[in-house]
């Protein structure tokens, strides 16, 4: 980053927000990823050493939200919706069009939701924001999430696990397993010492 918090060569002519910590040896493609970012915490987003965050990734982080991307994580265009905490550990790989959401942002009850929607229409900027409790997401070391997958509030994905493309993860994923489908189900375990044949 430049001293005025710009990303060199960025097509999006805005600085990275002051309370976003990017390691000197991390790569963030564009500050556009922070267009929806509004965390008021000291480090609302933290991006670790050797991590890379590519175009299409959006940190839609609410006022009390906190996202951490560990060392050597690869975030290749995910929609990160966070009002509490999304903790991504080291070596995690996240593919394109993945949705990580620790909150639905609106109540399930339609009468209450209608009120939230009406309130959003008079906001500046307009946002449907923080009307329900958020439940943190934890993605542990070296997990891999395939493209177009969704990870829902409260989910923990265990170390080394794989989430297949287009899966919707509604429950915790055991470490060293592969889950696929909508809703996601375990299809096999990854054996210790397993190598590519």
């Amino acid at each position: 980053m430049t001293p005025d918090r710009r990303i060199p060569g960025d097509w999006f002519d805005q600085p990275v927000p002051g309370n976003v910590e990017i390691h000197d040896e991390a790569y963030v493609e564009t500050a556009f990823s922070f267009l929806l970012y509004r965390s008021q915490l000291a480090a609302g987003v933290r991006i670790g050493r050797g991590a890379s965050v590519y175009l299409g990734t959006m940190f839609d982080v609410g006022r009390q939200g906190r996202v951490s991307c560990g060392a050597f994580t690869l975030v290749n265009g995910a929609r990160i919706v966070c009002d509490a905490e999304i903790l991504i550990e080291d070596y995690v790989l996240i593919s394109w069009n993945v949705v990580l959401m620790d909150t639905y942002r609106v109540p399930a009850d339609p009468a209450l939701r209608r009120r939230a929607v009406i309130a959003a229409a008079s906001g500046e900027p307009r946002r449907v924001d923080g009307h329900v409790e958020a439940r943190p997401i934890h993605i542990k070391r070296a997990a891999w999430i395939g493209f177009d997958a969704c990870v829902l509030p409260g989910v923990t994905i265990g170390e080394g696990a794989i989430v297949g493309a287009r899966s919707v993860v509604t429950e915790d994923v055991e470490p060293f397993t592969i889950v696929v489908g909508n809703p996601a189900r375990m299809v096999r375990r990854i054996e210790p010492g397993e190598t590519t044949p």
Partner: protein
Amino acid sequence: MEGRTPAAGTWSDGTLPANVVLGARTLVTGAGAFRRFMSTGDRALSIGSDCTMDGVQFALGAEARVSIGDYCYFTNVVLLSELELRIGSYVVIGWNTTITDTDFHPIAPAERVRDAVACSPLGKGHPRPPIARRAVIIEDDVWIGPNAAIMKGVRVGAGAFIEPGAILTADVPPLARVAGNPARVVGTVR
């Protein structure tokens, strides 16, 4: 105030097609909003008041009609219509969800071969075969999560809650919570 109508809604990134009607305080954003808008009908797209259409693609074919009520909030939704999408009020639709009222191409392989030729650069003079299309109806107060899809002919009942990633191929009763691929009713919203 008497004799004064509120200002119509706006599109932040260009001049609206003449057959698009936006209600008061409705905001449409995104340079791609009308890139695939081909409908020629009168009032082909009408959106009520106080709506937020952030990054929505209005991909309407020549005969398509799309109506959206008041206080709707859509984020990067893809609306693909060759017939009719009828969407009520207070409807929220999440990022990267697709709604379509058509199959785009025929089911029968022989017809599909003809369609492939008709759609090709050599297709002049080859009419396209008939293609299934059935209106999609989404009633008031429906919430649809991100990465979902609503396919042709589906009616989503008032107040229903469509979980992220759900693929809807059949009607959803009012106040139902649905999830999965294919989507199933997994509960109610209350």
